[in-house]
């Protein structure tokens, strides 16, 4: 109760605000956060190591499960990296199809984020509203790929599933639906006073800091760094479509780099994705969808490669990198994944400093962390670690006590 008592609170790895395990240690004085640090590694499964024991086709599905949310971006980056190493030119139709899948994913991911952000603010009506809207794109994804979440449509040298003429009307219907829904979303999110109160000027990240800490994706763009792999670095069909990186000033005329800005950027990107899909459908070229439809042959070809490849992809959360090396073997020789959250995680420390305890969840959520692939670091200062241990000690004590009780219970 004493305002001046400093105390350290650890949030996560099991915490209702975080569906994923991450541990954030905040040193608070009263409700004010004096310092913050985080520790990861709770989701580290050793995927890159697994990759060295599997063939590239198996790895596509492994890459898909680096994260269930960006399960186009990871396999896409992986495929492009392999194609880069093996010098494979993907058919144009496949590139357009990849773009459509990737943008569908971005829509679902950004809607997911908006819902989650509202949920962090306790605004469950918006969560429900947005996730209901989101079902539409999931339906379309399921319709096109055979599953709502894991799409499993990418293949080295192209895509596994074509989009037939018959399927296009459903996509168009979805586009129309979202155009309407988008207006509504803007109204709800931008005009709500409680949301503004909770997100405006909260968790500010300056442009300078964003650059220094190598932030990527919407997090960087919300701070005014006009960086978007789709705009900067040609892959798939994006360069044809002239994508432009979105910063919040497009809508508001100013950039503050706060949580609200990050919401705006994602909101605008939903609209951008809709437009990109529309264009892709219109300009979809005819032709094959795979460079090598016979997979056995593909595997044999890949076995002969002795080269390294690297790929950049703009995942919903930002720039994603896969680097790999192949050396005359069915398995990979080296594989490195750099997920966007890996780069963005640092930014939460300056964002959290001097915020309030109540802001922590929304700030952390505002970079839309997806730690599945970012699980890498511990940055904890000494003091916090000690405090953490204390809490831990208490927890252990508690557990022992409960164990005793349980034993008693069993005897009865």
């Amino acid at each position: 109760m004493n305002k001046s008592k400093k105390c350290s609170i650890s949030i996560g790895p099991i915490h209702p605000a975080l569906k994923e395990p991450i541990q954030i240690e905040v040193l608070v004085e009263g409700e004010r956060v004096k310092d913050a640090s985080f520790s990861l590694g709770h989701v580290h499964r050793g995927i890159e190591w697994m990759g060295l024991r599997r063939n590239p086709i198996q790895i596509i599905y492994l890459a898909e499960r680096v994260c269930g949310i960006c399960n186009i971006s990871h396999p896409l980056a992986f495929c492009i990296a392999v194609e880069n190493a093996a010098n494979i030119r993907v058919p144009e139709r496949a590139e357009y199809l990849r773009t459509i899948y990737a943008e569908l994913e971005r829509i679902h991911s950004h809607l997911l984020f908006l819902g989650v952000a509202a949920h962090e603010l306790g605004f469950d009506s918006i969560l429900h509203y947005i996730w209901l809207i989101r079902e539409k794109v999931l339906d379309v994804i399921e319709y096109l790929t055979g599953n709502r979440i894991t799409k499993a449509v990418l293949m080295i040298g192209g895509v596994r599933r074509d989009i037939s003429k018959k399927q296009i009307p459903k996509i168009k219907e979805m586009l129309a639906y979202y155009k309407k829904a988008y207006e509504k979303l803007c109204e709800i999110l931008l005009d709500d006073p409680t949301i503004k109160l909770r997100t405006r000027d909260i968790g500010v990240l300056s442009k300078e800091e964003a650059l220094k800490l190598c932030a990527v994706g919407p997090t960087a763009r919300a701070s005014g760094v006009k960086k978007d792999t789709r705009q900067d670095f040609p892959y798939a069909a994006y360069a044809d479509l002239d994508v432009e990186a979105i910063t919040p000033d497009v809508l508001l005329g100013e950039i503050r780099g706060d949580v609200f800005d990050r919401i705006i950027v994602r909101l605008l990107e939903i609209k951008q994705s809709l437009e990109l899909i529309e264009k892709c459908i219109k300009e979809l070229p005819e032709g094959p969808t795979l460079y090598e439809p016979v997979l056995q042959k593909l595997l044999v070809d890949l076995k002969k490669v002795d080269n390294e490849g690297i790929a950049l992809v703009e995942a919903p959360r930002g720039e994603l990198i896969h680097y790999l090396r192949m050396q005359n073997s069915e398995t990979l020789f080296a594989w490195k994944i750099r997920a966007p959250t890996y780069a963005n995680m640092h930014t939460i420390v300056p964002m959290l400093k001097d915020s309030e305890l109540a802001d922590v969840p929304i700030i952390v959520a505002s970079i839309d962390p997806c730690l599945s692939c970012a699980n890498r670091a511990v940055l904890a200062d000494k003091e916090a670690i000690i405090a953490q241990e204390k809490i831990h000690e208490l927890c252990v004590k508690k557990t022992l006590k409960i164990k005793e009780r349980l034993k008693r219970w069993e005897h009865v």
Partner: protein
Amino acid sequence: MQATELIEKLKETLAKDISDFRIVTTEHGLKKNRAYRVWAEVSNKKLKDVVKKLFSLQEYPHFSVSSGVDTGQNIEILLHFTLNYAAPKEQVLLTLRVKLPKKRPVMETITDLIPGALISEKEKREFLGIEIKGLAPGRAFLDDSLAGVFPWRKDKKGANKIAKNLHTGERIEQK
């Protein structure tokens, strides 16, 4: 600035410091837009200089990540930068390769120049067992029970000996 222009400049500035300079271009889309990947090797000693020089080409060279490969005799560290970003379609993906002898794999930190490299460097230290001078101490993110194991190593320090198969519950044979 155009990507080609930047690559020229890059070559000029770094001419003395780099070797094995390669430009790989790929084509994408109907318009055959080109993507530029640049590869170069840097000696361990000059790495820091080179990174500093990058700042003359780009206000904040974006450090994406570093990769690490155990090639047998050496440990290769690859630093991936993106330059000329925010210029539509003209970004250059630069990779600097540093070879560290496996016997004494030591390099210097670049976190003083680019604070965002912290996680990357800690990761390299922990996954490859290299030493990075000037980097804040502290075990990164693997569980303490894994001390002494460097999962990316392909020798006996690697992770094979502790890995297991979840389906069967068996240990994985030495590969």
